[in-house]
């Protein structure tokens, strides 16, 4: 920035990272004329990717327009740092001395403020060299803000022009595109800008937006200008589409103060005199020239512009095995983002590790420039006087139309041997008997597959997704069984009632087996089966149960039982008693089988009819 610059750097609270956050505010000039503008830059930097937004005071004496912000973040050795530069254009609305109030920033609850910046605004006539009067919402001079006296009647009120600073450029050479919006009439609002479509270019914005005044075909126009740096990505005919501006302009309606309808026209112009305009610039063509193949250095990686290269180390007298940081900086004018890596030459005396790069961009005077820093670690393997050879960087200089190879100077190191002045970067025994690390390296590879055993088994268990449900299932079944058992145990009568049929069938089966050999014993078992069944079902002791009592209880418990069933109980009871106590006779076996069948049918029916 030119002119008076006021720089304020404030350190915030010492607690945490807030202690390292900086805020800076600067203006490009502190003395301006009324129709001039001030560019205010507020920079916030700190060791974090996300930084707080600065708070601005009320500035009624200025029209404030944001001109964008630039956020850069870098990582170096795992540490992050970032800087956000907010750019604003301020147009003064007063004459005399004033100030831009303190800009504040709050971090971790601590608030700090920059000092106010004094501004003096002079009358345009008082200024020695008046500058064109810009405003973000221009209002041209002249009666009623319309066409200037004497201006050609066919001159357009608003228009857009796009142009480039060169029609031919080498691949990756900067071409500056300028889009200007001219207006000769008052605008009803801020115009809206749509950037042109571009194919075959890499683009970089060139803030801030400029404003000015220019005379065109005898008429005074105010203009706003947006610039963009373009870098042709390929050779051939490349096109830049039309830039579009949408604006609302006041209709050019002349009002005669002496006319009969003066008031009607005056107010109607105020409410209905706005017209929407969509303005487009003409497309612009650029020819991308291919880079010459003759004389192209082997290490050329596509850099176009003017560059210089420098190298430095952080220690000149290391020990063998010590890490030395080698920093190579390429800086200059051109597309910094497209710079390829710098090739570190072979250095047999060093172990060279990977390179990490960071980048800084600057766009002063509408030129993209900056630097790219490559950092690598080199470890001297041997002691003695060593040298880092020149590191080269090749680029194409479009002004000379030839390739240039920049080179660093050799860097000398004096490496002391330390405990072992040998070219073997291994761990050696120091004279004291202690081990001294000479260098660090990864460990050797494994010569056998290894692994398996318990670890593999555990891994397979972990992968057995479906099998995991089985133990839960087993547990659920066990729980259900235990609960059922608990339930049965707590209700002996119910258990007796429910198991009556099962136990009766068991006795009957035993009786059937005995029927052929011991009919009386079989009859006893069947009688026991019937009595126990009735006792279990009717909740009575089988031992003392008489036929009469059994029938009474049966009638009470199963009132819907058919009379023939009562008869069947009675008959069966008596038949079994007869078989048990009468002397054995032929045919008892057949009677026993018949009784077994009858008792089975009877208890099946009774089991169905007797409800608990």
């Amino acid at each position, binding site marked *: 920035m030119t002119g008076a610059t006021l720089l304020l750097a404030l350190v915030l609270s010492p607690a945490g990272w807030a202690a390292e956050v900086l805020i800076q505010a600067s203006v490009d000039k502190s003395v301006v004329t009324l129709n001039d503008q001030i560019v205010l830059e507020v920079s916030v930097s700190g060791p974090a990717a996300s930084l707080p937004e600065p708070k601005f005071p009320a500035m009624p004496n200025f029209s404030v327009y944001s001109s964008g912000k630039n956020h850069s973040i870098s990582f170096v050795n795992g540490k992050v740092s970032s800087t956000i530069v907010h750019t604003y254009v301020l147009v003064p609305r007063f004459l005399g001395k004033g100030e831009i109030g303190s800009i504040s920033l709050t971090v971790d609850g601590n608030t700090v403020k920059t000092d106010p910046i004094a501004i003096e605004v002079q009358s345009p006539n008082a200024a020695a060299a008046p500058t064109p009067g810009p405003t973000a919402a221009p209002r041209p001079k002249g009666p009623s803000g319309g066409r200037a006296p004497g201006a050609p009647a066919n001159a357009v009120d608003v228009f857009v022009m796009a142009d480039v600073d060169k029609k031919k450029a080498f691949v990756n050479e900067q071409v500056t595109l300028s889009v200007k919006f001219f207006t000769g009439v008052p605008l009803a609002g801020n115009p809206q800008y749509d950037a042109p479509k571009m194919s075959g270019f890499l683009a970089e914005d060139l803030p801030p937006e400029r404003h000015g005044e220019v005379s065109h075909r005898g008429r005074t126009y105010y203009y706003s200008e947006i610039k963009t740096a373009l870098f042709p990505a390929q050779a051939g005919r490349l096109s830049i589409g039309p830039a579009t501006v949408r604006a609302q302009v006041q209709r050019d309606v002349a009002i005669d103060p002496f006319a009969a309808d003066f008031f009607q026209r005056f107010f109607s112009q105020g409410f209905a005199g706005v017209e929407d305009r969509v303005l487009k610039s003409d497309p612009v063509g650029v020819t991308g020239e291919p880079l010459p193949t003759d004389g192209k250095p082997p290490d050329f990686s596509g850099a176009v512009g003017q560059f210089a290269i420098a190298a430095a180390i952080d220690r000149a007298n290391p020990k063998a095995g010590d890490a030395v940081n080698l920093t190579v900086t390429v800086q200059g004018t051109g597309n910094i983002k497209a710079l390829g890596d710098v090739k570190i030459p072979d250095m047999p005396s060093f172990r060279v590790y990977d390179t990490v790069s960071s980048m800084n961009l600057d766009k002063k005077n509408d030129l993209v420039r900056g630097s790219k820093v490559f950092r690598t670690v080199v470890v001297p393997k041997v002691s003695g006087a060593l040298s880092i050879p020149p590191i080269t960087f090749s680029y194409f200089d479009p002004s000379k139309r030839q390739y240039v190879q920049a080179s660093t100077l050799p860097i000398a190191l004096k490496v002391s041997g330390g405990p072992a002045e040998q070219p073997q970067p291994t761990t050696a025994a120091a004279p004291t008997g202690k081990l001294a690390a000479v260098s660090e390296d990864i460990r050797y590879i494994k010569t056998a597959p290894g692994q398996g055993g318990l670890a593999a088994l555990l891994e397979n268990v972990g992968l057995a997704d479906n099998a*995991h449900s089985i133990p839960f299932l087993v547990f659920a079944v066990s729980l259900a069984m235990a609960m059922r058992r608990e339930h049965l145990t707590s209700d002996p009568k119910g258990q007796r009632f429910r198991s009556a049929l099962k136990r009766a069938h068991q006795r009957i089966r035993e009786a059937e087996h005995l029927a052929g050999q011991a009919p009386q014993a079989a009859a006893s078992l069947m009688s026991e089966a019937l009595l126990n069944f009735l006792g279990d079902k009717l909740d009575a002791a089988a031992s003392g149960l008489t036929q009469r009592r059994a029938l009474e209880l049966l009638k009470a418990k199963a009132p819907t039982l058919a009379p023939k069933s009562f008869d069947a109980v009675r008959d069966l009871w008596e038949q079994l008693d007869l078989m048990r106590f009468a002397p054995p006779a032929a045919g008892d076996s057949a009677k026993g089988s018949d009784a077994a069948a009858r008792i089975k049918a009877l208890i099946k029916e009774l089991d169905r009819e007797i409800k608990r």
Partner: protein
Amino acid sequence: MNRVLALAALLILRPLAAGAQEAAAPDAAWGGSPRGRASGALSGETLAAPEPSGPVAAWSLAAKAYDAGDYKRAAAIYGRLLDDDPNNASLHYNLGSALFRAGKVGRSIAQYQRAFDIMPRDPDIRYNLAFALKRAGEDLVPVGVPPLLHRAFYWLSDRELAGLHWLACWTTLLLASLFLLRESLRPVLIPWTAGAIASWLFFGGWWGARRLAEPSERAVIVQSAAEIRSGPGENYSVSFTVPEGRRVEVLGVNGQWTETGLAKEGVKGWILSESLERIE
């Protein structure tokens, strides 16, 4: 009863076999075979690795190539071996070492990380991962964490922890079932069941803590000074650059772009997917 046992055995053994098959073919999950990753890491060069007669010969051949400084060839052979044995920590470790020697720090860290995931208590794997991470500006043991605690926390792999957790779970449930069904055994079963429950809680808690401590989807930056943008496209501005080898969390995918987060710095952004190697 026998039929129930046979069914249970079938149900247990089938998933185990399926798990083994799954473990042997993780290529789909990784979006390419280990060989492909190794070849991709050394793109631009022909990797005409020979066809050794068997794994033992291949191991020997790879070691010879490594010793001779032909790291690309060694990496190619280890990559082929990983096709058949993708869960072999030693192979991931060796491939990582070959890639590291070949200058591919990011891809070597990805392999070391896989080896570490499988066999975290191996001292060589731990050392090389820490060494390579340091090159990328990252520490294996986070600042403020005692190294011994970190070593203990990562003594077992995730799968081993899962296996122990499920074994303890099975034991607990089976002992509890016995406890419910056999009243006579209850006095004997009480201490065993209590121990099983404690083991289940311990390993389950450890496993859960490990899953919480690590991102669900991880990746490693494999491109030098990779650019992280504010959106999924070249038209979005570059927010910051990340050195090769940094481990990042994968937050989402949009076409060729992957949203990544760096927990340490508390930032996130979009990066070309080809600049990452995902670790699953």
